[in-house]
């Protein structure tokens, strides 16, 4: 077996992803998708654009903060703004979102506070926010685990007779995990109101998507009897449309949908990764031609909007976001030692209390720090 034959899956090119705004800004047409975004005005598109600009700025700023030692690690989403913003803006606030660790734009759209988004990457806490405050679970690092949680949540919605949906975000690498396959089986069996949103960014750290799947990933859903669609993940309108359609289906009781958003991770896997070891410059260059932000600029220009105007407004908002992000992180106090022992159980526990007391005495002894 040569390396090549796993790098180029037979079917990847087969199903042309659905696209509404082409890389050059041209509007393309697709019947059900057009209908799904018929109400989206040019101003609303400019808002989506502004969200993407903000997401990109969060990324740049967090990466800088990591380099300056303010964050321990950062998983950039550069290049994936459209997939995340489009899908997240399709959601209602009472839908519930389960993501992996790269969905910073989704978190932004859900209203997660910027410093809460970074707490975990600074190493201050295992989890930055209260999931119920924004209806979004905190980032999941165990690959694919959250797809089962979303499925269970969706089953709960169905059992309760609610009209919300649960959405799971995951990567192309994740589709190999048993958990994801089990999630698809459960969701299909129970016809749960779930949306599986796979961001196929072509790479799982150093492993190309062809190592995970010999067919387009969306096609996997077929075997589970699940509706599926493959979209251009760098097209924010396509992402919005696909997610709206899937959510409508979920709310109508028609079961789960699998969306594969074909996109690209422009940066490293995390700030600790060195992508030059495994992928070519040409590939990165090719994808930068499909940039999700540039195409919306071009599109809105064709619609007669003044690029300078909406770009300036978006950048102004992004500046504020970046400033708040930096202030939130640099002003963040280190956690107190007692936090080590908190929230292990709902009720106090004698064994752990003893460890805590001993450790308090230890700090008193060696540092005069305990209480």
């Amino acid at each position, binding site marked *: 077996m040569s390396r090549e034959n796993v790098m180029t899956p037979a079917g990847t090119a087969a199903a042309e992803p659905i696209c509404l705004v082409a890389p050059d800004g041209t509007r393309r047409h697709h019947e059900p998708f057009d209908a799904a975004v018929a109400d989206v005005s040019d101003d609303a598109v400019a808002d989506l654009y502004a969200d993407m600009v903000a997401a990109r700025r969060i990324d740049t700023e967090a990466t800088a903060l990591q380099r300056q030692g303010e964050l321990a690690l950062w998983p950039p989403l550069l290049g994936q703004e459209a997939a995340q913003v489009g899908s997240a803006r399709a959601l209602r606030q009472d839908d519930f979102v389960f993501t992996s660790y790269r969905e910073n734009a989704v978190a932004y759209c859900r209203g997660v506070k910027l410093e809460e988004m970074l707490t*975990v990457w600074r*190493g201050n806490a295992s989890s930055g926010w209260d999931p119920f405050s924004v209806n979004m679970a905190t980032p999941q*690092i165990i690959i694919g685990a959250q797809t089962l949680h979303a499925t269970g949540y969706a089953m709960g919605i169905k059992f309760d007779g609610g009209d919300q949906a649960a959405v799971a975000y995951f990567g192309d690498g994740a589709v190999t995990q*048993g958990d994801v396959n089990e999630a698809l089986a459960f969701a299909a069996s129970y016809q749960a109101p779930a949306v599986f949103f796979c961001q196929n960014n072509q790479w799982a750290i150093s492993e190309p998507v062809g*190592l995970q799947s010999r067919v387009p990933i969306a096609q996997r859903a077929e075997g589970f009897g699940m509706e599926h669609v493959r979209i251009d993940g760098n097209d924010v309108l396509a992402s919005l449309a696909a997610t709206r359609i899937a959510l409508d289906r979920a709310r109508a009781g028609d079961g789960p949908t699998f969306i594969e958003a074909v996109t690209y991770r422009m940066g490293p896997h995390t700030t600790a*990764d060195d992508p030059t070891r495994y992928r070519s410059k040409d590939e990165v260059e090719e994808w930068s031609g499909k940039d999700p932000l540039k195409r919306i600029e071009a599109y809105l220009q064709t619609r007669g909007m003044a690029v300078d105007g909406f770009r300036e407004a978006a950048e102004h908002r992004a500046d504020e976001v970046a400033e708040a992000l930096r202030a939130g992180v640099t002003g963040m106090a280190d956690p107190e030692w007692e936090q*080590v022992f908190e929230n*292990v159980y709902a009720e106090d526990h004698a064994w752990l209390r003893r460890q805590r007391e001993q450790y308090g*005495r230890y700090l008193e*002894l060696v540092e005069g720090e305990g209480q």
Partner: protein
Amino acid sequence: MSTQQSEATGLRTLTFGQSINRGLRAALAEDDKVLVMGEDVGTLGGVFRITDGLQKEFGAQRVLDSPLAESGIVGTAVGLAYRGFRPVVEIQFDGFVYPAFDQIVSQVAKLRYRTRGHVAMPLTIRIPFGGGIGSPEHHSESPEAYFAHTAGLRVVSPSNPQDAYTMIRQSIACDDPVIFFEPKRRYHEKAEVDLEAEADLPLGAARVVVPGDQVTLIAYGPLVKTAIDAATAAADEGVSVEVIDVRSLSPVDFGPLEASVRKTGRVVITHEAGQFAGLGAELAASLTERCFYHLEQPPVRVTGFDIPYPPSKLEQHHLPDLDRILDGVDSVLERTSSLNGAAAGPSAARQGGDA
């Protein structure tokens, strides 16, 4: 020593990580049934670069980038072992072994027993483990007790580059499945490694790394170095601490431990994992059974707390360090210690009682 002499005697200055790489390379070269598998182990050379260069040297069929699924990695290794291969699988981080847990404890561990010896499972499962590198959650776990509790598995952990090189080769050569825990925070530590030396100890053997006669201090993996430092600090205060590196966490080589405890009558056991039902509990119970009448004090455990691994800004509170180990040593010496309830004033710890 000149480079040429070094070449001749096989001596090299290598990091812990490079030593494992050399061990893997030697094993791949010696036996074409040896395979290396795991996420990102090929082109990237592993996220810690432990398998760096191996795919280039041995090809994509000997050093395989696995699809992203740990149960798949270990489960297919079982099939490869049926077929006569000796897979060495890498689990990228300790916290990612759990999806493979079922394959390891239900299949890998039991196949020899279930088949009355017909099927061997010469798998080596490499797991970078433990904390101290400032990682996010699931990247700093110490899951050794789960595996040590499972009959049929060998569980080992080297603590220095020479052992890393020797023990990885012994693990691959072993006809039993071996869980090979690599103390990831030691990956960059260097030492002189003899690549040609015959192994001085069997895979399952414990070793006295610092001789002493007042306290027995038992450690493994990442904490051996900390334990040695603690023994040096204790020596400065006139206390003689014997440090033992357990090396094999299952089965445990109790001989050297027992001999030491009979001599010192005082024992401290340290590990990063939580205390409850951890390795320390087994070692303390077994040594108490074997050496009860030689013990001057109950064995003391200096361990991580019984909590999920904390966020990185708090890990220094969780991980036993030199001072906490010395506090444990004080306790078995009946000096002022947080563990025997004494809450003396600040800085009393290092002044309490006579040696």
